[in-house]
């Protein structure tokens, strides 16, 4: 399905053909569920959030101005919903200090196993204040495209760049203790 097909489906829905919305759901279900999953790391909740995003999109299809691509409009709507819902009821995440030690004995020699290390970084992202966390999540979801991130959040690109830089700085400082301990273990 292309952008033109998206538009045609929207016109049909606006003309009263509700079933035409199914094509849009089929095309965008993956990206919307995955975006929600990045925000909450909970599959069930991600699907609930994505469903609510589709419902809101259906309700406000008439508000989509054709200057922007349908996908841009949909992502902005979904991002707003996810951010506000997760600020209202935050995702249940494990704190950085509560992360269990690696179970694999190789990890004791070779530092944190890659998977554990990735997990620690991801959890550290969740421990950031929302405005930095949201920018970081969207930046990597949009394959490091600042313009797309700014559009989804409705923020100027300069603000997104500043928050990215500050967010990374905070991540570095949060992780430094953890990684230093890891290094000491490696040296011992």
């Amino acid at each position: 399905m292309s952008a033109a097909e998206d538009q045609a489906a929207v016109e049909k829905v606006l003309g009263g053909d509700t079933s035409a919305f199914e094509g849009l759901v089929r095309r965008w279900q993956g990206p919307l569920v995955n975006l929600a999953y990045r925000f909450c790391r909970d599959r069930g909740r991600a699907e609930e959030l994505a469903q609510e995003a589709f419902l809101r999109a259906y309700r406000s299809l008439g508000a989509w101005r054709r200057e922007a691509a349908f996908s841009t409009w949909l992502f902005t709507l979904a991002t707003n919903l996810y951010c506000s819902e997760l600020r209202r009821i935050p995702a249940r995440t494990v704190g950085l200090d509560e992360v269990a030690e690696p179970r694999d004995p190789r990890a004791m020699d070779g530092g944190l196993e890659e998977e554990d290390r990735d997990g620690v970084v991801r959890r550290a992202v969740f421990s950031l204040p929302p405005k930095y966390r949201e920018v970081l999540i969207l930046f990597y979801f949009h394959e490091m495209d600042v313009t797309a991130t700014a559009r989804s959040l409705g923020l100027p690109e300069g603000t997104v760049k500043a928050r990215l830089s500050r967010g990374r700085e905070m991540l570095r400082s949060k992780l430094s203790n953890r990684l230093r301990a890891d290094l000491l273990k490696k040296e011992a």
Partner: protein
Amino acid sequence: MREEEFDRILSKKQEIIPSPGFVVSVMDAVRREAAALAPIAFPWKRALPGMIAAGLALVWCVVVGVKLLTGGNAIEPPPAKLLVLLGLLSETWRAVGASWILLALVSSLASVKLSMRYAYGKRW
């Protein structure tokens, strides 16, 4: 930890596939939404004359107030018909117990607002 390492870790795609029933579930919700009756629109056409009259009365009050404050005795007495109309309005107001109705409306509105605020947070 270097920036490239953050980029490498956080760019890693951990794709999840929506459950098989997801589309059906969304479309069910959409169909329910479409089948639901549209909310009753505010009756602007009926309310408009009353709102205009209220607006004019407010403007008249402001003009009289300003004249009272600035000119003192210079204000002319309002026309007799207007006085009769105001008297009639005041009689009706008392007869239907409009003050109580107004009080009930305000307290209902306040209680609805408060409950919404507790349920949904500050945006209400």
